[in-house]
């Protein structure tokens, strides 16, 4: 355990360094681009005086490292992620967190469906190795994984919204105050229960199921060759028990790291899913922020994304050693 502690300590020491580099580069990059947010913010007022005033009010007249320092000071001391340029008079916190909440809702449902179907399908394919079921299911998985959502979502809208008229064409229900105490009457406030959510969820879950099916199959096959599985069978354990207790338990171990990556995959997927379906979530808003040079918003998204990912990868490494005591972190693996 001692090795693990110092390993984790060393990894954690790097976190601030990584985050500093990431935030500074993003900060500089966002300001380096063409297009002037001051003009966007000035709206109809097109005189130099107004520009200068806005520039001063936002601190854009200062040198870049000073701007960065001021911004980070606000983030670290007050949790203030700055002001949105596009949404006049609103802070990034006000715009960002509702958007995150919307994205999280359907992403969580999509991930659940992915795992609930992907893992059993993978095991199913592995159990039928050597028959026609296995290669054809892998090919089907690969096919589903290969067709980009950019192509399937428009066709899904064409058939379900326009031809059949059973699902709405796009959008997201208006947010209302969610009563955290309980569902009761306010469940319709949670967008994910609406019919608008069906196509986005499917668009994210189907490729996910395919990816998880393939991984599960590969790892299950690996484990099924092990001696202890043969031992378990020869002890006369039921096939179900062998599969769940002996095979899956070991096969899911390497899969736990992939959960992190599929989380990232889902977030990236939400960029085009949201742009196509008009869900005002984190993906659509970040894209619009890049287009509209909403500096503080871009910074906030990159910062939160990077922090979550860096910390998550450390947590996964720790979890890994806890689940599987065979893994040891040696000193050199800096």
């Amino acid at each position, binding site marked *: 355990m001692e090795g693990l502690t110092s390993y984790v300590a060393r990894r954690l020491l*790097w976190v601030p360094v990584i985050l500093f580099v990431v935030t500074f580069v993003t900060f500089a990059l966002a300001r380096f*681009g063409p297009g002037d947010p001051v003009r966007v913010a000035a709206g109809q007022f097109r005189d130099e005086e107004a520009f200068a005033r806005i520039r001063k009010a936002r601190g854009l007249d200062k040198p870049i490292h000073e701007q960065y320092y001021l911004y980070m000071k606000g983030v670290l001391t007050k949790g203030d992620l700055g002001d949105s340029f596009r949404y006049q008079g609103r802070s990034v916190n006000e715009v960002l967190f509702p958007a995150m909440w919307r994205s999280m809702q359907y992403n969580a449902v999509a991930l659940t469906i992915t795992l609930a179907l992907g893992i059993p399908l993978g095991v199913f394919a592995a159990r039928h190795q050597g028959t026609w079921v296995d290669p054809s299911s892998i090919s089907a998985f690969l096919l589903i994984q290969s067709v*980009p959502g*950019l*192509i399937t979502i428009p066709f899904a809208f*064409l058939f379900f919204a326009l031809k059949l008229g059973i699902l709405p*064409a796009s959008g997201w229900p208006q947010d209302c105050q969610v009563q955290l105490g309980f569902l009761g009457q306010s469940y319709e406030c949670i967008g994910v229960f609406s019919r608008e959510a069906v196509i986005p969820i499917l668009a994210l879950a189907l490729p996910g199921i395919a990816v998880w099916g393939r991984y599960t199959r590969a790892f299950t096959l690996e484990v099924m060759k092990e001696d202890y599985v043969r031992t378990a069978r020869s002890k006369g354990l039921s096939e179900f028990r062998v599969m769940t207790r002996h095979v899956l338990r070991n096969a899911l171990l390497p899969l736990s790291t992939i959960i992190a990556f599929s989380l990232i995959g889902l977030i990236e997927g939400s*960029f085009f899913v949201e742009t*196509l379906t008009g869900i005002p979530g984190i993906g659509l808003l970040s894209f619009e922020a890049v287009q509209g040079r909403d500096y503080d918003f*871009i910074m906030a998204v990159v910062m939160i994304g990077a922090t979550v990912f860096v910390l998550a990868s450390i947590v996964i490494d720790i979890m890994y050693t806890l689940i599987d005591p065979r893994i040891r972190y040696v000193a050199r693996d800096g």
Partner: protein
Amino acid sequence: MSRETADLLLQEPEARVSSVSPMGLAWRRLVRKRIAMAALAFILVFYLAGLTAPLLTGVGLITSYRQQDLEQALQGPSLDHPFGTDRLGRDMLSRVIWASQTTVIVTVATLITGSLVLAVTLGLVSGYVGGWVDTLIMRIGDTFASLPTILMLILINATLKDRVRDVGHNIEDLTGIGGIVAHGVPDYLLVFGALSLFGWVGGARVIRSQILALRETEFILAARSLGASTPRILFRHLLPNVSNIIIVSMSLGLAGIAGSEIVLTWFGVGIQPPTPSFGAMIFEASGVRTLNAHPHLLAFPGLIVAGLLFSFNLLGDALTDVFTPRAR
């Protein structure tokens, strides 16, 4: 590997007579996979079409991607236009072929710079040299891996495009070579540059982990005690031993690279019109009303793209089987 060697020895005389290189052996195993060969054939046709697009236009088989015929706008598939025409009356088949040229350029360039040069060199050096060099490279890798890739790609392309274009214009003025910007060279550079920048981490990590084990082996010790220089050990002794991993990770990355370019262009920050790209074609065709009226505008480019990505994935899967029979 020992299993394979044993199999080979069992198949006596031929196996003994004609010695087979590991790559030759892998190729033989790949040829036996019919689906993989079909995928490879599709990829080859796609790349050939993309590479010969100017030639095909020259001999009149297809038209230039710019050639408009407004009287023929938005026609469905016909003998003259097998894939139909778009809203400017441009032949869709020609545009698909020209768009595949874009995909070919971006995938090959990214593969060479990102997957080969960056990933292989950094992976080799990181694993073999170790120490602070290793730490530095791996932390830089962590930094890139921790960023939301799509957002960063969009950000880089959106912010740096005009600068790179300016540089392109300057070069045109200085050298007198025309059409650098008009042919979309700055767009290509930026797209594949950004993709490579984010694409090397995974490959480098895998290669590094293999090198960590390999550098403790006797043959490296032998090479070192014979006085071989570090570059020689890296590229003559270690590189051939990880070539299978390089091939597998490259082939698995191809679909991602091709897909990313399409997504970037779809967002409007990748290759700019009039240079044709699948991303732009898919974007223009994907409005529900447009799609309802003219499904061929999305169906044909969509089919080709899906076919290509499917083929890449099939091939990658087969190569994984062939090169790493035990792993995965």
